């Protein structure tokens, strides 16, 4: 571990001095900046002035210093294609409507974020430079929790931490399903990105129920039952009447989602976490084949995480503790280090939920299947106190943690996620693992992964960790993820989600008819293309 070095402190002070120096400009807008390609400085300045009149001067960020936190990203951007021009932070639907009117007038592109902490995919940065960030963090009301139905309705700026605090304060017996970085991110944002968690409610979009959307022309639409006068079922019934439209507002740029409903998991009377330890990289195939029937018949009800050892080690350790060479870490080095910490090459975490009787009935069935696959089935009895076991126990019971953020320190602050989908078949996961290792090896990166196992598929979450302060390494990381997207695509394996730097590349893999349909919807709903142009490859 390197801690805070004197070099960091000196450098940070130098950056600060440079930023303070930017105050020497007659106007903040005179400073160097990245503008939208079709907007000149005068038009941009006029738009900023009007935005300030809507939200107040302190909530428009249009100088280099105040834009800095919006430009922070872990993903590679060697050609500076993901640099925002500034940000505007409304506090209400009405302010959003006013902002959209200005954006339409000036053709000002707005990149919408809820909390902007999408760490493997670009944080708050836009798919093309010059976009202004529409930061919805100030809209942070928990509008309603229905304690009888177990439903929530929240605004974009509400974090999982806010929600957890609310549930605790009101003594409401519900668990949350959190993503990896729950405390500082938004249920609305994560659900719109179709993120996943760790409990039986782990498919977040599946558990979503009703939303409110502001369209580019300012129209407010409520989906599902939400547009019915005096409706009492907005968060109770997903499908509404007629075409189901919630999906077109996820991973898209067709509107600004300002409210989101979703379901909360009743706290179960009993919960038992398990870890299955396998010691060889090749065991991936056996694990998937053993797990598949239990996810299909729901005997194992939660989103299961099959964690690669290198990823887990990176949470709490630095690369130099294992390996001091530039090429990928050999498997045997990872295996030996993992073993010292109670981990195998693959560590699969699942849990049983319900009553003691239900768990006692199911445990022997799953235990038998995983032991037959060559795994060691471990519980709190053997693993209690182990940092990684405790981490997954917490996640599978909806508790908040940021421990996986440690992986960003593996190689100097750079990280991006490539997330192809695999069918839940052992042979194809084995092939994906082999292909990923081959490509990563070519660039000298480590195979640092997690497989998230849904009902019939797996998200193969491959984390490219690199030194973002080294331009050569940043270029390599960019080349690497592009090669991975392309070569996995040639095998028919496409991403379920991707970073701002590869959105267009992935969109091409979904075919021309799909792209054209999205383009036609975009043209109809946002003819000036002011909302997040380039999001998921939709201009």
């Amino acid at each position, binding site marked *: *571990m390197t801690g805070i070095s004197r070099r960091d402190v000196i450098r940070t002070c130098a950056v600060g001095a440079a930023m303070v120096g930017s105050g020497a400009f007659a106007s903040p807008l005179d400073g160097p900046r990245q503008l939208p390609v079709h907007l000149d400085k005068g038009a941009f300045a006029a738009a900023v002035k009007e935005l300030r009149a*809507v939200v107040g001067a302190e909530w428009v*960020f249009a100088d280099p210093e105040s834009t800095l936190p919006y430009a922070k990203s872990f993903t590679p951007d060697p050609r500076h294609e993901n640099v925002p021009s500034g940000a505007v932070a409304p506090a209400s*639907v*009405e302010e959003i409507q006013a902002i959209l*009117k200005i954006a339409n007038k000036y053709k000002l592109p707005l990149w919408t974020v809820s909390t902007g902490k999408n760490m493997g995919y670009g944080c*708050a940065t836009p798919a093309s430079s010059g976009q202004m960030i529409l930061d919805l963090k100030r809209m942070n009301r928990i509008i309603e929790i229905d304690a009888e139905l177990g439903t929530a309705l929240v605004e974009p700026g509400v974090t999982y931490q806010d929600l957890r605090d609310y549930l605790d304060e009101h003594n409401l017996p519900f668990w949350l399903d959190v993503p990896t970085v729950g*405390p500082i991110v938004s249920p609305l944002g994560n659900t719109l990105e179709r993120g996943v968690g760790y409990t039986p409610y782990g498919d977040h979009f599946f558990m979503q129920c009703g939303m409110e959307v502001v369209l580019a022309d*300012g129209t407010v639409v409520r989906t599902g039952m939400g547009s019915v006068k005096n409706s009492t079922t907005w968060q109770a019934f997903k499908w509404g009447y007629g075409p189901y439209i919630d999906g077109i507002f996820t991973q898209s740029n067709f509107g600004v989602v300002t409210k989101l409903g979703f379901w909360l998991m009743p706290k179960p009377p009993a919960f038992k976490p398990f870890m299955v330890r396998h010691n060889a990289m090749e065991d991936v195939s056996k694990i998937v084949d053993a797990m598949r029937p239990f996810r299909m018949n729901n005997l194992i009800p939660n989103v299961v995480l099959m964690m690669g050892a290198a990823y887990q080690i990176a949470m709490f350790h630095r690369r130099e503790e294992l390996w001091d060479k530039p090429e990928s870490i050999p498997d045997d080095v990872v295996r030996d280090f993992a073993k010292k910490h109670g981990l195998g090459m693959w560590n699969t975490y699942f849990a049983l939920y319900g009553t003691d009787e239900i768990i006692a009935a199911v445990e022997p069935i799953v235990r038998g299947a995983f032991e037959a696959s060559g795994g060691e089935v471990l519980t709190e009895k053997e693993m209690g106190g182990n940092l990684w076991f405790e981490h997954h126990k917490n996640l599978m019971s909806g508790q908040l943690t940021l421990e996986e953020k440690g992986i960003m320190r593996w190689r100097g*602050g750079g990280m991006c996620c490539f997330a192809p989908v695999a069918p839940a078949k052992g042979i194809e996961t084995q092939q994906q693992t082999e292909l990923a290792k081959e490509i990563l090896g070519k660039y000298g990166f480590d195979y640092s992964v997690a497989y998230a196992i849904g009902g019939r598929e797996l998200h193969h979450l491959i984390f490219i960790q690199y030194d973002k302060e080294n331009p050569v390494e940043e270029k390599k990381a960019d080349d690497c993820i592009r090669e991975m997207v392309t070569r996995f695509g040639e095998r028919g394996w496409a991403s379920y989600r991707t970073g701002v730097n590869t959105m267009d590349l992935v969109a091409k893999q979904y075919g021309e008819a799909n792209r054209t349909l999205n383009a036609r919807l975009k043209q109809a709903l946002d003819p000036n293309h002011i909302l997040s142009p380039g999001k998921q490859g939709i201009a």
Partner: protein
Amino acid sequence: MSAVARYRPVAAYLMAFALSAAPGLAASATTAPAPRPPEAVYAKTCGYCHGQHVAPIIRGRGLPVEVIEQYVRSGPRGMVAFRPTEISDVELKVLAKWLNASKADPKEKGE
């Protein structure tokens, strides 16, 4: 700027902008939330990483106030950047002073 003066321009915009009739809920609150004490900001944000084996211990090290402020807003290397919409300028100033003067917490882990 007072809350009333600040929202007057919005009202003007709304007069000119078609608002669809959305039933039910009231508009957002118009008052700024009260600043959170530094202990709460630390516990609910910084303390998930710092002192948890993930990021360096920062309590009890006398880190300069201006360095803390710059780190929070810029997010160097593996750290996330936090915006004024997440940790307000007022909260950050108080947090930085509190951290600078804080004693080490023996319960924290790591280096």
